[in-house]
């Protein structure tokens, strides 16, 4: 799949933003005044920036409001509804913490649950797609959830929590890669089933339908960069989880936690790039590619 920068930025940034809102809503960190302004501002800012980045992915962003209508069937619509609901439900808690030095736990808890559901909805947009076997597996949502919650814990300065979540994230990433590598074969789709001719013999593409590129090839048969998959996995694992965890173990200071956050985000960008670039869509079978 084509690793669109807007989608990579959106999933990483808004993930961390909603992760932070989960911890602020649950009251694990209960800032007031200026600190609350900065922390809630970060949560709202990152979540909002991610949503803005995702709008750049759209052909017609001016019609984006329609995306709030189909929550009964569509995970993408659910994500939009949940994201808006999170930001609205959390607002009284954020405002009271900042301006009145009072937490409003009811709104906080409600916002936290909605924020968690938003992250899950983002993951489900990819997990639901059966035509991309690597994504269509239970090991996909844990990566999104743990990445967002770990990023949120780092942003909230929760050292112990972040340590545990980073360890969980490392395990989730490895599991997603390990299962993912077998998913295409498990899905059972090959050129034989794609053409229905597999029963007659071995099928290969003789002539593609067109000599140039097209939308399908650009969007879904993205093969560039896969050869570096192994190195990128190492980078994602080390920068995204292991090195930040080591930094937190070594020092409890703000410098260490800030550096850990920067490394974590860099590692996640690599992980998310790979999440798209490595994912093979079954439509490639019609072009003799994967």
């Amino acid at each position: 799949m084509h690793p669109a920068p807007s989608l990579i930025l959106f999933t990483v940034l808004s993930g961390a933003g909603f992760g932070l809102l989960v911890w602020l809503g649950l009251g694990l960190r209960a800032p007031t005044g200026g600190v609350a302004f900065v922390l809630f501002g970060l949560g709202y800012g990152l979540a909002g920036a991610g949503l803005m980045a995702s709008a750049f992915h759209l052909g017609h962003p001016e019609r984006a409001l329609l995306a709030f209508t189909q929550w009964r069937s569509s995970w993408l619509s659910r994500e939009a509804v949940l994201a808006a609901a999170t930001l609205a439900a959390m607002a009284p808690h954020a405002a009271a913490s900042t301006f009145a030095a009072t937490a409003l736990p009811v709104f906080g808890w409600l916002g936290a649950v909605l924020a968690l559901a938003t992250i899950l909805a983002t993951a489900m947009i990819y997990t639901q797609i059966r035509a991309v076997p690597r994504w269509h597996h239970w090991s996909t949502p844990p990566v999104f959830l743990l990445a967002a919650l770990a990023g949120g814990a780092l942003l909230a300065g929760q050292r112990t929590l972040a340590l545990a979540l980073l360890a969980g994230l490392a395990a989730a990433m490895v599991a997603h890669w390990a299962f993912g590598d077998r998913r295409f074969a498990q899905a059972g789709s090959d050129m034989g089933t794609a053409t229905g001719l597999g029963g007659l013999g071995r099928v290969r593409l003789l002539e593609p339908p067109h000599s140039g590129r097209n939308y399908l090839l650009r969007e879904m048969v993205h093969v560039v960069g896969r050869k570096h998959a192994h190195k990128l996995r190492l980078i994602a694992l080390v920068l995204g989880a292991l090195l930040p965890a080591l930094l937190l173990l070594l020092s409890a200071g703000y410098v260490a936690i800030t550096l850990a956050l920067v490394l974590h985000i860099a590692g996640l960008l690599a992980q998310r790039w790979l999440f798209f670039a490595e994912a093979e869509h079954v439509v490639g079978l019609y072009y003799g590619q994967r």
Partner: protein
Amino acid sequence: MTSLPETTNRKLGLVIDLDTCVGCHACVISCKGWNTENYGAPLADLDAYGAEPEGTFFNRVHSFEVARDAAPPMVVHFPKSCLHCDDAPCVTVCPTGASYKRAEDGIVLVNEDACIGCGLCAWACPYGAREMDGAERVMKKCTLCVDRIYNDNLPEEDREPACVRTCPAGARHFGDLADPGSAVSRLVAERGGMDLMPEQGTKPVNKYLPPRGRDTLAVPDLASRCDPAPEAATGFLGWLDRALERL
């Protein structure tokens, strides 16, 4: 809207005969022509006269070779367009309700005025039946020529999809696959019509008829009878041959 109908009264669709298709791409061109001039936004061509031309198409013809163990390889021309699936994954992922499957005849359509161009439906389709238009930035797909098949202004013989109407080989058939007595349903039953990628669980309406078994003639091994290097001639002819060679 983007929930699928429980059942559809009819299942209009295509039956494509892989035995008969000659791979001429006439269906590709007639489809592009009709659907550029009629329903919805035109199908864009980008860089049409440049170095890397590309365009939006509803229908594309791939050609495959099937290598067989005890028989010569077989070339199969393979037209591919929307299969108007009963369990269409492209419909349910749509966040705006732009994608829908009609309860009355099962045709999967896009309301282009509501499409935000997110591209998720194209990702959800295993068959590559949907393409984002490069100029209009909305999702385009086969409409089963919904503006022809019910069009009273056209002569009756033209009230079928443009690809079916134009196919010179008679490899494309249009009809109601929910009616077991229809011509297309009988074709599917007689010829063993098949689904593409059934493991994807989409329950396609369109069916493909597999190539018929090829004749296997009891021809002796002709190659060994054609000896390209006859033995060197002897006697007078041998002398003549050598003499002429020396000249």
